[in-house]
Each structure stands twice: as C-alpha cells, then as structure tokens.
C-alpha cells in the first residue's frame, strides 16, 4: 500500500527546476541536517509518513536519526531512489566510464574483470548492477523501504538503449534481495509502461511528471491520459506544480481529477507550503469522492 501523498527531497539538495537562485537559497537553508529533519517533522505532522529520496550521501545522516529514534519513527517509511546521478555523471566527466566503475563498484569483482583482458560476460553486467544496488541500499539498513525506485536518468537511458534486460535486472533484484517492490521514475511514462508490460510486469509502480501544462510529459499528453484510463498500474505523479508554473490549487485540482493516480509526490521547504499542499489534496480528493458517490 503506497500512501496517497509522498514527501520528496528536491528542496533539500537544491534541485529547483525553475530557478537557480531558489536552489542556492535552499542550499543555505538546508546546510545542516537538523533543518532537513525539522522539515521532515513538519511533513509528518501533516500526515506524511513516506519520504521519497535520492541516495544522496546526506540521506545517511537522516537514516541514522531514524534508526536512533525507533518510537518516534515507528511508522515511517523511506522510498529510496537510486542512483544519485550527478555523483556518477560528474565522475564520468572526470574519470571516464571505466574509471567511474572502478571508483564506485564495491569489492574486487570489477578489478578482476579488468585484469582478465576485459573479457566481460553478460552475467557480470547483471552482477555489477546488483552490487551497485546493494551498495546504494546500505545506508537504509534497518529502515522500512517497501518501494525502491530507479531514477529517471537511468530508466530513460535504458529505455532508449532498448536494454529491457537491465531494467528487469533491477526489478528482479529489488524483489528478491531487498524484499521490496521495484518502482521506476521516468520522463517517458507511456514508453516505459509498454516495455514493462511486454516483459510481463503486472501492476507496475511508475512515477512520472504529470501536470496540467504537460511539462516534462514526453510524447503526447494524450498518451499519458490513455494509459491512466485503460491500464493497470500504480501511477505516481510528480512535478504536479510544473516547477511552480501552475498555481498550487489549480495544479492539484487537475491531478485529483485524473483517474488511477495512486499518489502525489511533492516537496516543500516551509511548514506552511507543506500544510497548504496537503490540504488541497485532501480537499479535492474529498470532492471527487463525494461526486463519485453521488453518481
């Protein structure tokens, strides 16, 4: 069961889709982990008990606090999203692809691959990915992580490369080894749905941009609406405010009117913004429920 509202982490890591200035202000506001924890508490007070976050280094300190306060965070869940792509992207620019793998892959599996004249067998790529998933999951030990997501940069890269097997390797490993449900973040939801369906995934968990202005909804908005209307899946909407381009109330009214949106993901820095977004979602959910019951 995925909560109706998920709290995101972009604001903590200066990810702002429309303003570099706001990004900097957020970097300053969330310099200390206490500020992150305080905002998570505001979100919890507003009823948000799922934190969906990247596997950023700083999240490990958040995890430490959660582990140390088991009573306070009894029902708290984290949905990790991996990998934290900029870490790897910057490393690739500096070290190249091979150098990056050498730096980040734990253990000596890769060392031995390089020594062996790079005779890489297909099986080893999958083992490599499994090792990387396990490494990213280490910081969450002892914390409830019922859903684990693959970040959109990787999901979308694999969609374009038609590397279905790798997407499925993530899917299978998360289920088997981490006893969690795999989820995918994407900017190309209809294309991803088709791939997962073709590979026999039923009722997939997909998180994608869904908003009234069609921002970051690649392909056709109609294709998104068609999937929501006709397919089985747990669809999570992110970027519902389109980075601030749509007034919150209007943005949320639209999201709540769509069929089959399991959850709404949003992030906010202030208590006031958290509370108002939650209250809009509750308001429009109730309205739709009432209308549905009346008809």
């Amino acid at each position, binding site marked *: 069961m995925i909560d109706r509202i998920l709290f995101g982490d972009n604001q903590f*890591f*200066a*990810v*702002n*889709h*429309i*303003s*570099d*200035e706001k*990004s*900097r202000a957020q*970097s300053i506001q969330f310099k200390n982990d206490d500020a992150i924890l305080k905002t998570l508490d505001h979100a919890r007070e507003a009823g948000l008990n799922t934190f969906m976050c990247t596997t950023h280094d700083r999240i490990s300190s958040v995890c430490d606090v959660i582990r140390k306060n088991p009573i306070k965070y009894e029902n708290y869940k984290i949905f990790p999203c991996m990998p934290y792509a*900029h870490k790897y*992207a*910057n490393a*690739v*620019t*500096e*070290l*190249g*692809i*091979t*150098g990056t*793998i050498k730096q980040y892959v734990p253990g000596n599996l890769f060392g031995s*691959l390089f020594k062996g004249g*790079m005779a*890489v067998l*297909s099986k080893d*790529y999958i083992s490599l990915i499994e090792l990387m998933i396990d490494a990213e999951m280490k910081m969450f030990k002892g914390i409830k992580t019922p859903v684990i997501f693959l970040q*959109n*940069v990787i999901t*979308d*890269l*694999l*969609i*374009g*490369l*038609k*590397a*279905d*097997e*790798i997407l499925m390797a993530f899917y299978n490993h998360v289920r088997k080894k981490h006893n969690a449900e795999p989820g995918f973040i994407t*900017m*190309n939801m209809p*294309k991803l749905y088709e791939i997962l369906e073709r590979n026999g995934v039923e009722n997939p968990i997909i998180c994608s941009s869904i908003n009234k*202005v*069609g*921002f*970051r*909804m*690649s*392909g056709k908005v109609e294709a998104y609406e068609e999937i929501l209307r006709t397919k089985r899946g747990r669809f999570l909407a992110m970027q519902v405010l*389109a*980075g*601030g*381009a749509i007034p919150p109330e209007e943005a949320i009214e639209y999201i709540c009117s769509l069929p089959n949106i399991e959850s709404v993901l949003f992030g906010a820095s202030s208590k006031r913004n958290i509370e108002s977004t939650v209250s809009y979602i509750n308001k429009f959910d109730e309205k739709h429920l009432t209308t549905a019951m009346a008809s």
Partner: protein
Amino acid sequence: MIKVALVGAGKMGVSHLSILGAHPDVEIVGVCDTSKIVTNFLERYSKLDCYSDFGKMLDQVKPDAVFIAVPTKFHYQLIKMAMEKNIHVFAEKPFCLNTTEGRELISLAAKNKLVNQVGYHNKFVGTFKEVKRIIKLGMIGEVFHFVAESYGPVVTKPKQSSWRSKPEEGGGCLMDYASHVIDLVNDIVAPITEVKGATLKSIYSNTVEDAVYSVMSTTSNVSGILSVNWSEETYRKMSTTVTILGSKGKIISDANELKLYLKDENKEDYTKGWNVKYITDLTEQVNFNLRGEEYSAQIDYFVDAVMNRKPNTINTFQQAWETDKVIELLKRHK
C-alpha cells in the same frame, strides 16, 4: 528512416545513442568504440553492431549520417573520413583543436553538400532561444555589454586521469565548459572577435586550466566579461547564466529562468519593469526525454535536416568554428 552510426560511446555518446534509439525515424546501424566494456554491453543488451575500426564500420554499414563523440583531438580526422564518404555529420563540441583543420572541414561539407552540426545544446534551450529573439527584435535597444558565466563541479579535487585533463586532446575548462558559453554569446549577441585580457587559472589540475576569466569584445563592439569555472562545488551541475545590457533594458537568463527588465515601454506580453518567464513556459515538448529536452531537440533537428525537413542553420560547422577562433584567442593568454 535514416541509417545512423556513432563513434565514441562515452558519456555524451551513450546519451546520443539512447535518444537515437528512441527516435522513430532512425535506425542505429553501428557503434564504434575502443572500450570493450561498453561495446560488449551494447551488443549484448541493445543488440547493436559494434566495431573498433571507424573506417571499417563506415564501409560495412554505409550510414546516411554519423555521430562523432570522441575526444576533440580525433574530430578532424574522423569527420573528414566520414564526409569524404558523403556521410552527414553531427559532431560533439568543441569542433576542432585548431581553426585550420576546422576551415578545411567547412569547405568539405559545402563541397559535398552535407548536413553538419555541432552539439552546442544551449541553442535548443527554451530560455536562451527566447533571449536571442528578444535581442533580435531590439526589445532591449542597442546591446552594449554582456556578462557570460558558467560554473559547475567537474574537478573539485587535485587529481586527473581522463582525456579531459590532457590539453593536447582537448581537455580543460576552456575547451569543455567555456566553449559552451562563448558559443552562446556568439549566437545571441554577436561573434566575439577580440580578447582584451584573460586569465586561464589552474585550481586543482596540474595540466589544464580549471577556470577562464576574460574581458572581450564582439564584432558589433559590445564589451563583455567571461567567467567560467568547472571547479565550483557550490553548483550541483553545470549552470550557465548570461546577463545582457542594452540601451532600453536588460536580460538575465539561465537555462531555467529568464528575467527581462524593460526601461520604458511594453513589448508583446512583456511590460515595463521586471518580467520573469520560466522554462516551463518556453519549452517545446519532445518525443523522448533523457535528462533534458535540449538533448533530444538538437538530435531531432539534425535528423530533420538530413531528411530535408528543416534547413541546416543551427550549430553549423561554420558557427562552431567561430567559437574555436575565440578559444584560440584565449589560449594565447595561457
């Protein structure tokens, strides 16, 4: 449908492959790279035919177009080889290591009537496109000064190991980061023709510069300041900002947000005083999105040009060569 091959499956190359793979009018017929670790992956999972010899690949798969995403040092040789075989070329930036080589390739492209494009993707970013339009329409009057900046966290520790740390292969902040900003100014203001002073500073690297600071001017006598630093860890990723001052207004724009100040009167839907537009208002949707619309948009544009559906006028070799010229001017200050 066009047949496309690619050489250089590094960070940009793999990103291009993914976008090409999702393109409805493209068939990827071959990939060339020297790294077995990459080609084995692409053969096994993407079912692509991979080669380690570029010439052999071109002869065997006979592509209509080729993407060249190898280190800059090899651009000249590979682009020439492809164009002599009448193959359209999309090359990564910067264009060439020197202007003599670049000039030769421009003539070859013209002679063989080939589509030629370089990967300066900022030209496909909605905010920067709008900046160009605003200036062209004279909305901020006569432009007299620019400040062009770009910062990001590429080299934040004292160590180096890839071709980007080798100046002779096209490494360094000037070729990698500053080229983007110079190209943008050349396009939206006017070509930069004079470097009045410059500092190429090493911060963590021993062999290349990590920052470029310069005072320059353009053909139209606009003065400007360039400030680029790839060892800036206060930025999460590369962030480019242009500030342009004109007699009737001012623009400050990055890839997300465009701020326009109009001194005396309303223009179109912009009103006197400050106006703000966001990338959300200025982005055209693409068919497939991998880490940003502009990367798909530039490939869509190239494919359209090869298929004769669009003119080949954005990011041509000629324009990229103008950027190489400025890089040459800056190098003299090393």
